[in-house]
């Protein structure tokens, strides 16, 4: 099992803030909109550097999505910022009609996604956003795994023409991917080659998959670990190549079992290469208040849960 060095503990939302500032420095068409969460979204650096390109929209997310659509119509590249809950479910029809169906070049940037939002509880812990967004035709859906990758993804989406949903989170999280990496939308990243089971993980759970890989190695199990930072378009070739080799699959995500990465991979496999799939995800329930790590444990999204899923998947191999 390859060793991953943790270089820092940083929140992915700060990676977004840093990426937005850097992207805006070289592209004057980039504008930012925020619904009263500038500090939480780490957009204050952008706001200070480019006050005339930053739009405070107040607590009015539906209007924010429409404003972004209008700015995009006029050739701007709007980045909207609010919590993932208010970036998706609250404004789904605005995104569907005014942005996705209208082919607008809007970047919907969503923080505090998933259980790791923590103490604020289930009202704010959206676990359905990846599913909602991936169902929209033409929408690119990205869920990077750490600070460095979130920064790189933010820079990459600025250069991609079309609507994008970029999901990131609140807590400090291990940074283990390279600084100044190139981010290729839709290209899965091989983290560890293995032969017994393929683990496809996204977002914060990529780190849990790496920890699980180390635990599995101690048990003599060789896990292939792949970072699916782009849920849509899914890197089908990478998924199928790995599954062809290992013959069983685990998916891991901070999302409902319905509609997320696991669904996408299961659909791909069912249509091309039916194999055992085990899913590490929230099992059709809402979250609750607690510390991020406590919640990941309680809702079975921790490294030991990935290990158990891998063992189940291997046992199901014919």
């Amino acid at each position, binding site marked *: 099992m390859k060793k991953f060095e943790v270089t820092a503990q940083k929140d992915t939302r700060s990676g977004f803030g840093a990426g937005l500032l850097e992207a805006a420095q070289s592209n004057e068409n980039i504008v930012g909109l925020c619904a009263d969460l500038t500090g939480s979204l780490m957009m204050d650096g952008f706001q200070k550097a480019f006050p005339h390109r930053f739009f405070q929209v107040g607590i009015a997310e539906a209007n924010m999505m429409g404003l972004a659509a209008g700015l995009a119509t006029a050739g*701007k590249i709007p980045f909207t910022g609010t919590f993932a809950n208010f970036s998706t479910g609250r404004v789904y029809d605005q995104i569907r009609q005014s942005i996705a169906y209208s082919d607008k070049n809007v970047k919907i940037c969503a923080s505090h996604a998933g259980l790791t939002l923590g103490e604020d509880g289930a009202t704010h812990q959206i676990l359905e956003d990846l599913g909602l967004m991936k169902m929209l035709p033409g929408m690119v859906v990205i869920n990077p795994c750490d600070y460095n990758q979130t920064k790189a993804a933010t820079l990459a989406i600025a250069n991609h023409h079309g609507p994008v949903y970029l999901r990131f989170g609140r807590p400090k999280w291990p940074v283990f991917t390279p600084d100044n990496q190139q981010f290729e939308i839709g290209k899965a990243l091989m983290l560890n080659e293995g032969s017994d089971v393929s683990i496809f993980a996204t977002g914060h759970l990529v780190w849990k998959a790496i920890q699980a890989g180390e635990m599995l190695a101690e048990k003599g199990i060789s896990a292939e670990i792949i970072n699916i930072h782009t849920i849509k378009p899914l890197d089908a070739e990478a998924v199928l190549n790995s599954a062809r080799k290992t013959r069983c699959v685990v998916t891991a995500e901070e999302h409902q079992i319905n509609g997320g990465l696991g669904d996408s991979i299961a659909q791909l496999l069912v249509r091309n290469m039916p194999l055992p799939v085990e899913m590490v995800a929230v099992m059709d329930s809402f979250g609750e208040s607690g510390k991020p790590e406590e919640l990941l444990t309680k809702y079975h999204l921790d490294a030991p849960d990935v290990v158990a899923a891998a063992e189940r998947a291997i046992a199901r191999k014919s």
Partner: protein
Amino acid sequence: MTDSNRLKTIATQVRRDILRQVYNVQSGHPGGSLGLADYLTALYFHLMKHNPSNFTMEARNEDVFILSNGHVSPVFYSVLARSGYFPVSELSTFRLLNSRLQGHPATHEGLPGVRVATGSLGQGLSVACGMALAKKLNQDDNTVFVVTGDGELQEGQIWEAVMYAAHNKLDNMIVAVDFNGQQIDGSTLDIMGFDEIGSKFASFGWEVMYMDGNNMDEILATIPQARAKQGNGKPVVIVMKTEMGMGVDFMMGTHAWHGKAPNAEQFEKAMAQLPETELGDF
């Protein structure tokens, strides 16, 4: 011919186009479309600075029109085609399979003149605010024109945008509320209306004007006055009284023709009230 008379002739042809589109496919929204024929004709054939032969999404250095109540697509398509955005003959494809003239206006099929998909009510005003912001960023002093329905004011997003536009002094925007007093289920007052639209906008900090949207001379007099307020720091709303079904006697004074196509007999009767013009039918 005076501008007013020329525009009245075009508006008559637009009304014929509306009825023919809806009748052809036995589907669509004739009532509100007929009510808006005069205002949209005035905008597209006289008041707006626009470039039908070279449509760009960005609309730099020209006026912009956003139709928020997208269900009145027949009137929108007619003025777009008649002013040169696409061939008039294409009106015959309204709501048909593989047409660019979708039931509600959309950008997806690349129809020139449409800048955002509308019809899910309440959204167009926000998009228009975004375009008005962009014009200010680009130091482009042209105007963003918007039409919303009056029933549409029941959507909460409208008031988010109304608050935003006032707070951010989007004075390069002229919003006409199509005050016909009708919606699908009946009169707006019965369903969830308020009888003084203007005071609501005024209380949010908008400049409020009133206009008879079926009186061409009044339209031609009012819009330049509205434009003259640009730069005063307030967005402008025009409470525009219209008659749903205007021009066809049996379609007026009722909500019944909001989303209903006439049958053959009704179509003949309606068309007989709208004299043919030298522009010719599609």
